[in-house]
């Protein structure tokens, strides 16, 4: 995989879609769209203020939404990377997240170390699992068509979830964060665990950005995403890049799982709830757009919280799905993608 930078940058053959893995779409339109999105968010918050009548409640909702959204973004980053490079809609992402949470739980329970140290185990483990899943199940013949990949990952998620259920039972488990604290941010309560998870999400996002933009391997990944055949011609081992990318995507889920473990109760089916949200985030940010996923995550976190203010007694998911369907219809390439 040498000397591929130039090839990757030049537009490929007309029939092939080019995916802006980093949101590199020319700054002008992106800025404009960001302004429009920001305006919509501001209007939404203003309406929420009118509806609720309490500034504190709305402010707390915004803070909670953004913190949660960072985590959604982190989970979605792995998913969107896999989609962007491999064209695989990975339905097993949530189940892999659950696996990583059980790893974190096991490490903390078994050794008593600080939960975040479980990152050292969970991230490499999930990378390996991802690589094995790709090599074993998704690459080569039979893993070809979109439906087949969707079905394989769907089967995998059912298998992993029910395997966890068989071996660990359904009793909810908790991972406690030692020395957790609360701080007040202009009246809104922020728990330490949530803040750490948010910062962690930004850090992982930055690492991923650096990896894709500044390393040779990242260039190879982008080359494969842009034009697999072209990359192959200039000497990139496409299959290896695919496997490694899938591994990196699932490793992101591993990182997200460890960061989120103190915030949730760990059960085998917990992946489902995050999987659905992550898909919405991926579509919102533009499939294959890593930076878009982070922004999309923040937006969905906000939408979730504002839904509970707008529609009393409705599930926050309803608002998420409504946004999802509107985006699918009006901007299927996502807020920050460009039309294929």
């Amino acid at each position: 995989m040498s000397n591929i930078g130039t090839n990757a940058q030049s537009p490929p053959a007309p029939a092939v879609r080019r995916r802006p893995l980093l949101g590199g779409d020319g700054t002008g339109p992106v800025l404009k769209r960001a302004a429009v999105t920001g305006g919509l968010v501001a209007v939404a918050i203003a309406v929420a203020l009118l509806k609720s009548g309490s500034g504190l409640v709305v402010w707390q909702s915004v803070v909670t939404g953004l913190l949660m959204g960072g985590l959604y973004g982190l989970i979605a980053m792995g998913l969107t990377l896999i989609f962007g490079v491999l064209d695989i809609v990975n339905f097993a992402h949530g189940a892999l997240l659950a696996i990583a949470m059980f790893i974190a739980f096991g490490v903390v329970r078994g050794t008593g170390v600080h939960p975040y140290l479980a990152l050292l185990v969970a991230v490499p483990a999930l990378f390996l699992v991802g690589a094995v899943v790709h090599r074993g199940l998704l690459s080569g013949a039979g893993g070809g068509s979109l439906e087949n990949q969707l079905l394989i990952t769907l089967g995998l998620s059912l298998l992993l979830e029910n395997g966890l259920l068989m071996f660990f039972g359904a009793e909810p488990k908790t991972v406690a964060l030692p020395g957790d604290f609360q701080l007040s941010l202009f009246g809104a309560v922020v728990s330490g665990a949530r803040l750490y998870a948010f910062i962690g999400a930004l850090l992982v996002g930055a690492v991923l950005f650096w990896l894709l933009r500044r390393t040779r391997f990242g260039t190879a990944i982008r080359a494969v995403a842009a034009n697999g055949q072209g990359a192959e011609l200039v000497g990139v081992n496409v299959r290896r890049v695919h496997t490694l990318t899938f591994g990196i995507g699932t490793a992101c889920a591993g990182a997200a799982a460890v960061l989120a473990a103190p915030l949730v109760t760990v059960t085998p089916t917990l992946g489902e709830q995050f999987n659905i949200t992550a898909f919405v985030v991926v579509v919102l940010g533009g499939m294959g757009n890593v930076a878009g996923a982070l922004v999309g995550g923040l937006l969905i976190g906000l939408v979730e919280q504002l839904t509970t203010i707008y529609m009393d007694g409705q599930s926050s998911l309803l608002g998420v799905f409504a946004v999802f369907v509107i985006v699918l219809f009006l901007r299927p390439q996502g807020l920050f993608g460009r039309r294929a």
Partner: protein
Amino acid sequence: MTGITLTGRPGAAGRPVKAPPLRPQNRQLAVLAVLLAVAIPLPLVLPPAQGAVAVRILIFVLMAIGWNVMSGFGGMFSFGHAAFFGLGAYTSAYLLVEHDVSPWIGMLAGMAVAAAVAVVIGYFAFRYKLQGAYFALATFAFAEMLRLIVTTTDFTNKAVGFTVPLIQGSSFWKIQFAADSPAYFWIALGLAGLAAAASILFLHSRTGRYVTAIRDDELAAASLGTPVLRYKLVTVALSAAITAVAGAFYTQYYLFVNPDLAFGASVSIQAIATVVIGGIGTIWGPVVGAIILGALSDVTATLLRTPPDFLNFLQGRSGLDVALYAVLLILIVRLLPKGIVGTIAERWRR
């Protein structure tokens, strides 16, 4: 055998699809008649516990045939058939419980409602050219939205759902019989037979032939002036209506329905897995898949109730049946991408 599989025949694109001779259609209908005749005495032979499994299999058959029409023949991969199943179940349950309307009429109403909703969803999805993963995710989102709305709406009894009122004695008009009556099986068999016949006739109809051609090459079909949107919408409506029948019958058989049972994602997954294992886009795939999956959960449940020694560690554990069918799903997709029936048919033809 059908001779039509998801991948389509090479060379079918670009040429107008020729009408196949009438023979396969009649042959398939004849096979169906034989199958039905063989199945009729089953409830008299099976012990009661297996009778319930047989009815469940027939409900799976209905769901699977419905999904197969849209996603197998039509190539529009739906991840949200729970929406149509749930609409069928809720429409008939609502009419019966609140207005004392016969479930037969409720079933027809459910079919109409499901078909109408399917056409609306389909219209938007096709209008905005959603394809592949986007289409699947959109159908999923619609099913989930319906579930959430039904869960919080007074009109549908919120999360409680509907319980079908019991009557004295049995009544065909109310589809209610003694719990272990073979009548349930025969009615389900009749409905499944009608659905299978409908799918056979549809596949060989003008619309069916156009839809498979569109599936195999939409551009070519459109360039020949085929009204793509109309044929797709007809397919989607038929698919939703058949699935709604499954929902309405489900309510009558189990006498109870709530949002998760009717609109839950597991309903959609059930329909998909059944067809994929049996064979996507084949006539008999849904039937074979339903028999395998319907029997599988009963076999594992029986196994776990009194496990042999080497399986003792599994006692009190759950998830084995779903884990097994997940493995089956993965293996079939990896090794027999055309499903059991599709693969057998291909071997046979060679």
